């Protein structure tokens, strides 16, 4: 059964309600920092959009076997910052990235196979390892740890941060068995890549700006720049089973990927420390 729109929105509202209750329920705890205090800890979440400056996609059919899209939305489900002193802190955040599939622009792998082979061949078998059944899941994860600097007053804060982390995504192998129409000739086409799941070192630089909206809660906007370098190659082998001949070609996915991102969210501050004079 399809969940209703109310049910989808509920978890987000619940979290917001819990935070509001938590921050307003206890008047002393809800208080803003005193003049000589700073919040040592921030936690928050945000939602944003990534704009690619360079893309992984090559336009080849193998693009459809990669669980990554250069254009994606992200949900930063957890972001935590611990300040070591008034200015400098450590930050960790983890985000799930959701590929933006646009109908008409991003046909499925099977659709493209059909376009390519359907006029001359029958599809006899379409084999993919059992673990790769979720062929069309192009969601992936990113996690970062980094240094944060803080510029803040009672109402606003600005947190520039430099982060290092990883980007993890899956790739899939497929073997196709084809039979020529009006013929007894059979062929196989293999799309192979040795890496099934891989994580790539990722560097990011960005900043988060917040404005206090209620007691300890800030509304934040964030922007960032990200770089990482995937390194894998697909080999496409075509075998004519009658002649015993084969041909192969490679599609390289080794390239520098640069992207910008923008997002918004909420941040909660607590754990006030006294500013050392």
């Amino acid at each position, binding site marked *: 059964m399809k969940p209703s729109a109310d049910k989808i929105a509920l978890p987000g509202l619940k979290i917001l309600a819990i935070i509001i209750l938590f921050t307003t329920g206890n008047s002393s705890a809800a208080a803003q920092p005193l003049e000589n205090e700073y919040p040592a800890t921030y936690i928050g979440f945000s939602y944003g959009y990534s704009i690619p400056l360079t893309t992984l996609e090559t336009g080849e059919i193998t693009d459809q076997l990669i669980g990554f899209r250069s254009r994606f939305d992200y949900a930063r489900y957890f972001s935590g910052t611990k300040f070591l002193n008034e200015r400098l802190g450590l930050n960790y955040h983890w985000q799930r990235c959701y590929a933006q599939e646009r109908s008409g622009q991003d046909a499925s792998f099977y659709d493209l196979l059909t376009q390519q082979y359907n006029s001359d061949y*029958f*599809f*006899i*078998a379409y084999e993919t390892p059992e673990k790769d059944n979720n062929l069309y899941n192009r969601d992936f994860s990113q996690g970062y740890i980094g240094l944060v600097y803080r510029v803040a007053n009672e109402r606003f804060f600005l947190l520039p941060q430099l982060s290092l982390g990883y980007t993890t995504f899956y790739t899939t192998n497929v073997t196709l*068995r084809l*039979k020529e*129409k*009006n*013929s*007894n000739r*059979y062929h*196989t086409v293999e799309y192979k890549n040795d890496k099934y799941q891989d994580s790539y070192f990722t560097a990011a630089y960005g900043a988060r700006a917040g404005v206090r909206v209620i007691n300890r809660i800030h509304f934040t906007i964030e922007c960032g720049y990200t770089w990482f370098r995937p390194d894998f190659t697909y080999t496409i082998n075509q075998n004519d*089973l*009658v002649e015993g001949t084969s041909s192969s070609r490679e599609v390289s996915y080794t390239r520098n990927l640069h992207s910008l991102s923008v997002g918004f969210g909420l941040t909660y501050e607590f754990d006030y420390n006294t500013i050392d004079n």
Partner: protein
Amino acid sequence: MKIKKITIVLMVPVIIELMIACCNCDDYPFNNYYEHHAFFSHSEMLAYSIDNSGPFSQLPLNDSVNANTYGIRIILDRQEVIPEENQQLALLRSVSLMQSAYAFSCYCPNEVFFEPADWIDSIHITTINEFDAFHPAGSEVSDYFLVLRWGDMVPLDQLPDYVINTPFDPEDKTLEINALLMNAPDPDLPENHAFNLEIYLSDGRILQTETEEITLAQ
């Protein structure tokens, strides 16, 4: 006291049989080899013309098939052969007290290990009518056929390996093989064709059959 002793003595063979019967089925066939060992033999061969014009081959809807998509479906019948040792064991059970021990046994009936009693030495397809300029009536055309095997296409002379490596299934004793024609006959010759198939077995027997005559249209 005497009755107790007699009972114990009578129970001894039953207990021994129970211990023997309760072999570890996972270790099969190395335990209790002869009891679980059997053979299969190739007993009969049938052959039908097939139409492979679609994604999968099927029997022709009429008596004409496109020559480019023609094939022969070879159906090999395989039968169980009970080795003499097993027959003796079965006979022994039928006349001895040990038979009753089966009530307690953990005999693993499905784990019978089948080995071929005979194997295919060679297979030959000959054309009954004139096929082309190089193949008059009665000449061998085996080279014109390929067999679809485990997603690969192999010459007919590799069929014996395929058959020997295909495990015998007591539930389905037939083995189906599709031999596909890769060279069309001479279009100037009459279009009616039929083929004779012969399988030479290692024990000297020859399985022989013919396809029905069919029109190979071009």
